[in-house]
């Protein structure tokens, strides 16, 4: 399955990743060779095989239902590049819908 420049730009958009125009061709060829290798899985008949989504860990115990302190507002904002009025500042945005 070949991957086009359009595909790359579309996935980048989904991944909220702006790409420099000179990066696109390189990433396209990287992904093409990786996907070619991945096609190898098509050799295997997996019909009826249960997918492994996560590894089974013995029943996770319930935690005690007690109140524990969370992060203070101050320490939650301590590393924010732009805190404002006790929150994280973001540019104004509108719903695209």
């Amino acid at each position, binding site marked *: 399955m070949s991957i086009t420049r359009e595909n790359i730009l579309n996935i*980048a958009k989904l991944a909220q990743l702006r790409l420099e125009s000179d990066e696109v061709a390189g990433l396209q060829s990287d*992904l093409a*060779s990786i996907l070619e290798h991945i096609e190898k899985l098509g050799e295997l008949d997996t019909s009826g095989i249960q997918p492994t989504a996560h590894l089974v860990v013995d029943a996770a115990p319930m935690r005690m239902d007690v109140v524990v302190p969370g992060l203070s507002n101050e320490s939650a904002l301590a590393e924010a590049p732009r805190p404002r009025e006790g929150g994280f500042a973001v540019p104004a945005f509108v719903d695209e819908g």
Partner: protein
Amino acid sequence: MRQLLEIPISELAERVRQGEVTAEAVATASLEAIANRSSLNAFVHESHESVLDAARSIDKRRARGEPLGKLAGVPVAIKDAICTLDFPTTCGSRILCRATKSKSQGWRSPFDATVVERLRVQDALIMGKTNMDEFAMGSSTETSAYGPTLNPWDPSRIPGGSSGGSAVAVAARITPVSLGSDTGGSIRQPAGLCGVVGVRPSYGRVSRYGLVAFGSSLEQIGPFANDTRSAARVLNVIAGHDCHDSTTAVNSIPNFEGACDRGVAGIRLGIPEEYFGEGLDSDVRSQVNEAISALEDAGCELKKVHLPHTAYGVATYYIVATAEASSNLARFDGVRFGLRVECPGSDLKELYGATRDAGFGREVKRRILLGTYVLSAGYYDAYYKKAQQVRTLIRRDFEQAFNEVDAIVAPISPTLPFALGQHVNDPLAMYLSDVYTLPCNLAGLCGISVPARPTSATSERPSLPVGLQILGRPFDEETLFTVASAWEKLCGGFPAPSVAP
């Protein structure tokens, strides 16, 4: 004082507890080693003050007659992906560095990872943070924003990765032990390529709370050390259920150090032919075979086993791991922490895009794109679901093998440590070098890498390390420590690099 960093940590901690040496003196020796070996680029964040303060407080408590912990005064280096209160945590990435007026400043976690907290409770000295492939994505520590770490056996070669800095800290005798994380081999492979012991615990054995997430269903934190017993002691300290990580098992924790003293007679070792096929370097093959023969002479029973889906491990892993990564790395967006790139008038999406473009390196972008692609509408069944099904087949391979044997022995890496830059422009070749380590993560097994005998020096290259990998059933790290420790005794201990910088 240098030799303090070369003795087993049980002995070092005992000397500190007895007052034969102060924690401050040990800390000073390790800080000097960090400075003397800075050309290896093993550390990315260090601090004299916090380390010396911690050491003096341990010495004061001893002077007052208070009991000290199992790691009293033992210097530990921590991979830059594991959160620490007293050092920045940046995952080898620009995106976790915030530009301030004067300089770039690494992100500071508001909490210690559970493993770091457990080390501190046992009076370990947290020496600093070690270099790594950006977000643990790489097999050579070359994708770090801080530049590559060099292999102390031959500085023109890679140390392996992604936990290359932690492997080198131990191999170069800067700290006697360190912590790394293993998502697809990132502890075992650099341990093998640097000639040290590296343990990847079973999935669920060690808390991941405070480990910056890459592939959540695959990764575990584990120790590096210069001897098997020291690695066992660190694992005993960090293992166990954690209420902050619901995937940690409630199993009781065996005495891993005690397992180092057991005999190997009668232990059944599986030799998977798929790990000894085409592509395996002849020097690696002969050194690994020598160690296996020695174990046979010591009473282990060797048995051929088949892991028929091994060849599909790379493809399966690079679907599962990138899918998980594309989701986990969505949190780095310029809003709550780290880098933020915005232009006047830019909207929220432009802020996200510009920040992630400037903050992530090429390998991370590649994996985010691949992960997003395999999860996207129309491709999910063909890639992600298919990979999860093959993951089941790979697990079954191991389940069947472990019906017949107690552990599996194999090489760690198909090659000797390769030259810096050799695979930088060929991501698939880099991925294929992980062929022997990935299946363990997909199946949730435990694994250890211990040094086989290093190769002999030739006119073209110095002596280089080779790693022997031992894989065990989930939650059977004890067998790994028993077999690894037996080999360590048989070969007379693991040598330090001959080309010390």
